[in-house]
């Protein structure tokens, strides 16, 4: 329509992105010609702060890497320290960890569905999913004492048990979700407008997903059967034989588009419900902490010299924490890599060629939580990020490095 290009900065304070991140899309008419991403707006230097505090204090900090996945960050942090210090977590605690983590996944995926609907302008569904989500928040608050920040994990176990008396409420919530799950499927998978707005939009091929190190539902929607819960034993997932969900389970095909990423998340809600149910049934009795005395735990941690690394499947994908202890109060090194950090690069190929109207939903479809990605990374002021990457991609193609990777 118009020859000259318009640059529309989306963010850092754009209504579609509740968090500050700057995505600059260059438009030709309504079509996206060029994308560049700027981060760093919410960089708080968490890792650096963590090097000034003892591990138990840092646990509270890890919890505030992100307000949405605040089980998985402490979980990865604890697992890394336990790995460094050779701490064996009691079995009951491992099951409790899984229950809390899966409750969080349900809340996070429902939140995603609401946000996705909102990005499509479908606010009625935003209200519906967030109303449904209140139930799991109630359960989380009931078990941990707060709706959002759970403060439930502790190095060597969990801080609070699920007592027999609390079981009925948890069960009731599971039943409630069994019931609404069908409706959620109807709403998200059969709705013509949602379909029209997400099918074949923002495609990420399997090859691109591999090259850009995509993780979690983003990778699975492109057909990579990666899921840390399935691949790498941690907590009680070692006993649970989780299976990675790809969209072909439901649709018999994989397109790697925005719709597929919605499908994966909808199916994972069901999977989480089943996992919680199993854990409640199979959870063994026993202690929930390796060392119930906080003081003694701290003294012991001060003696640790060594390093540990942990992989955890967060709602948005693989999360990794690395920690190095050197016989002192505070750790020597702490590195967090949250899933959005890994998935962010995937936005660029997804957006190329999209229309402006698709930008919010495509960006939302990796379920970005910039809080985490930013805690350490910084930004590109120019449009370098994508150009470099596209260049790298083309280099890669010629080298034909992919053997098993392509579709």
């Amino acid at each position, binding site marked *: 329509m118009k020859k000259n290009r318009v640059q529309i900065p989306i963010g850092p304070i754009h209504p579609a992105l509740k968090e500050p991140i700057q995505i600059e899309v260059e438009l030709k008419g309504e079509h996206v010609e060029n994308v560049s991403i700027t981060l760093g707006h919410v960089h708080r230097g968490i890792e650096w702060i963590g090097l000034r505090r*003892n591990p*138990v204090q840092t646990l509270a900090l890890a919890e505030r890497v992100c307000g949405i996945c605040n089980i998985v960050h402490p979980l990865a942090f604890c697992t890394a320290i336990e790995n460094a210090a050779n701490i064996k977590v009691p079995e009951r605690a491992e099951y409790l960890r899984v229950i809390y983590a899966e409750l969080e996944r349900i809340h996070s995926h429902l939140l995603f569905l609401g946000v996705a609907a909102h990005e499509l302008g479908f606010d009625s569904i935003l209200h519906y999913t967030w109303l449904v989500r209140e139930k799991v928040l109630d359960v989380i*608050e009931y078990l941990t004492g707060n709706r959002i920040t759970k403060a439930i994990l502790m190095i060597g176990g969990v801080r609070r048990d699920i007592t027999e008396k609390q079981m009925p409420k948890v069960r009731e919530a599971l039943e409630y979700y069994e019931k609404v799950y069908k*409706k959620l499927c109807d*709403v998200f998978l059969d709705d013509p407008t949602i379909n029209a707005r997400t099918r074949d939009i923002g495609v990420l091929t399997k090859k691109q997903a591999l090259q850009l190190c995509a993780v979690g539902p983003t990778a699975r929607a492109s057909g990579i059967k990666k899921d840390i819960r399935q691949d790498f034993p941690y907590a009680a997932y070692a006993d649970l034989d989780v299976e990675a969900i790809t969209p072909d389970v439901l649709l018999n095909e994989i397109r790697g588009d925005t719709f597929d990423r919605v499908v994966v998340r909808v199916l994972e809600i069901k999977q989480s419900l089943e996992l919680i149910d199993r854990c409640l049934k199979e959870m063994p009795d026993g202690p929930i902490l390796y060392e119930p005395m906080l003081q003694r735990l701290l003294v012991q941690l001060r003696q640790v010299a060594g390093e540990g690394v942990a992989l955890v499947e967060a709602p948005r994908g693989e999360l990794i924490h690395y920690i190095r202890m050197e016989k002192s109060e505070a750790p020597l090194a702490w590195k967090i890599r949250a899933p959005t950090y890994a998935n962010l690069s995937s936005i660029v190929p997804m957006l190329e060629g999209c229309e402006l109207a698709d930008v919010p939903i495509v960006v939302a479809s990796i379920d970005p939580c910039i809080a985490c990605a930013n805690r350490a990374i910084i930004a590109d002021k120019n449009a370098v990020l994508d150009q470099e990457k596209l260049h790298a991609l083309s280099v890669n193609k010629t080298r034909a490095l992919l053997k098993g990777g392509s579709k």
Partner: protein
Amino acid sequence: MLSAAKELFKQLFKKPATNPFPTKRVPKNVSELLEKVKRGEAKINRPIETPPRFRGRLIYHEDKCIRCKQCVRICPANALEFDAEHNRIKHYVSRCTFCGLCVDICPVKALEQSDEFLLADYNKDAGFLEAKKEKKKTQ
């Protein structure tokens, strides 16, 4: 679309899911309303109930405290300070993360968490924890 449309249409005739805290609508005059509530002439709706484990505002039992300062040392947000002048612990509500680590570490249970969470204030230092308060909750 049809299933969503049906759900939404049905909802028209159902009761809304909203908890009308503190009043259903903006009160004509808030200060007057609060006065009336005090006198027992009017009632405001309760917020959604907090569960027994809820981690609200801290309560400090000065008489139990042995001044070991463990809580000051563990607090991740630097919200607790030892007030040497008055020989007691001082707590900044507007720094607290409500994590409960201080409660866990206190050897004599001189700290506990109440169910109080309606803490909004015009002054961020208003929340200093000065005197002990009885825990309201029964559980």
